[in-house]
């Protein structure tokens, strides 16, 4: 549990009133992000992301799985969010469990809405076989704004994920799948449509983007939105009393910031791959 005294809280509120935050950021600014891809050689795709004090590690495993007859999807995606021991020490009892299922739910909802995997190359045998993506998120350090960090890390991990080529042989109604083990014969997953999350905390009467732990502790409400590259909204979750008129303004900020953030992340992954 993060402790904030009354005096610190009121100083934080006063400072936010003037348009700056206690680490010097302006209200709609992210903390510096550090990113590393391909950190886990045994995973199909992986990334490690640090957002201020928050640090997460994401591993993606790709498998071929069976699917229900009625399903038309090419990809099933599962998320698990786990707290490493040192991070879970911040929670009491059930809290950690609730917290991770909330994050999982948000990711599932956003990814299913964004229809990320509309890619012809991912097609196996409809109604019979599909790709199963297992995205395992490990929280190494909790420093506020976990959802955004997880969202970005998941997207980058997926963008570096390699999909093996599969030869499908059909004989007498049964399908034989032959997976090409050669790492050079893998396709990169296209994740242009994958959303990222942007979170505002309501402090006093102001909204601040990318809240730190201290700001989260002092906040009265939160607004998390998942946006994709087109600026479409894929998921929204908010609580706490917020003015209805503010919504439109916040969404414009989110749309703009989300675009920049996506560009930067992609650029960063490209640079990381080339070097």
């Amino acid at each position, binding site marked *: 549990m993060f402790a904030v005294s009354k005096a610190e809280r009121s100083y934080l509120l006063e400072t936010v009133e003037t348009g700056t935050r206690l680490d010097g950021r302006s209200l709609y600014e992210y903390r510096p992000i550090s990113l590393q891809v391909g950190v886990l050689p045994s995973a199909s795709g992986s990334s490690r992301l640090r957002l201020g004090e928050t640090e997460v590690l994401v591993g993606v495993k790709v498998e071929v799985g069976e699917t229900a007859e009625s399903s038309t999807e090419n990809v099933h995606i599962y998320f698990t969010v786990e707290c490493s021991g040192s991070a879970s020490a911040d929670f009491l009892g059930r809290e950690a469990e609730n917290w991770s299922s909330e994050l999982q*739910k948000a990711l599932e909802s956003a990814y299913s809405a964004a229809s990320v995997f509309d890619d012809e190359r991912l097609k196996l045998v409809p109604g019979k076989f599909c790709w199963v993506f297992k995205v395992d998120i490990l929280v190494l350090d909790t420093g506020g704004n976990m959802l955004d960090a997880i969202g970005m890390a998941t997207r980058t991990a997926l963008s570096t994920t390699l999909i093996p080529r599969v030869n499908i042989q059909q004989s007498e109604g049964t399908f034989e799948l032959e997976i090409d083990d050669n790492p050079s014969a893998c396709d990169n997953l296209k994740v242009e449509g994958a959303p990222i999350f942007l979170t505002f905390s309501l402090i006093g009467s102001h909204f601040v983007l990318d809240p730190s732990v201290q700001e989260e502790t002092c906040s009265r409400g939160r607004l998390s939105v998942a946006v994709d590259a087109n600026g479409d909204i894929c*998921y929204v979750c908010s*609580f*706490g*009393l917020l003015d*209805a008129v503010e919504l439109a303004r916040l969404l414009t900020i989110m749309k703009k910031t989300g675009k920049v953030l996506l560009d930067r992340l992609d650029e960063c992954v490209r640079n990381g791959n080339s070097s």
Partner: protein
Amino acid sequence: MERISQRYGPFFEPTDWLETKYKRERPNNAPRPLVLNTGTIADAAGSGYVELGKTKVIVAVYGPRPPIRARAGVENAMSGRITCEVVKSSFCYYSCESAKIPSRGFSEEERLLSIRLIRVFEPIVILDKYPKNSIDLFVVLLEDDGSAMAAMTLATSLALADASIELLSLVSSATVAVSTKHEYLVDPDRIESENAVGLITVSLPLHAAQLCEIQHNGKLSVEDWLSTVQLAVEVAQTIGNSISQFLLQESKNKETYPLSS
């Protein structure tokens, strides 16, 4: 009370059949018939019952009372807190889901619904007036035919008012679905929600231009999203007005009761 005993047949038809054959039987902008009741549970400090079409929710409020399980050290004792337990009745699951009933404890969905309800009501209940106390909400979702969260919020609002707990305002809630044909469907039922491209639930206090909670699933452009929220807010306000009408009526009834006896 008569309406509670009314029986509805559950859906056993496969979903794809419903998708083609299903037809909304009321205008897109009309919510389903609303049934409200308070004081259903005699033992509780307050209780509320809400029927939104076939969706039925019952809520009991206990408290303010000293917390049963004190959480050591972390609690700010100067203001009260809200606890919430949401339970889905075992017959509220539809055919395909019935296998998923958890053997014990709360399912993930129930826990998430509990957290959401707490978050809706934390800024609404004037917790400073109940230091060192806890207000316990027990919610039973009897049948889920879409818009369950909205129904739960309404029922909790009724129950809190019934328990005479100090609130900033009554809370109202509404769900709007955006269909594949880009129609706005107010208060969607289960099939409509499952087939929607966007599903928004909004909770708001009646007497302020503010929102307590927004939950949105699905993909919409910013403009569409804003207009959907706008619609949901309007519907929630209409529903809210009928709730306050109902409560007013109830309190009048209560006033006349001792005289007649």
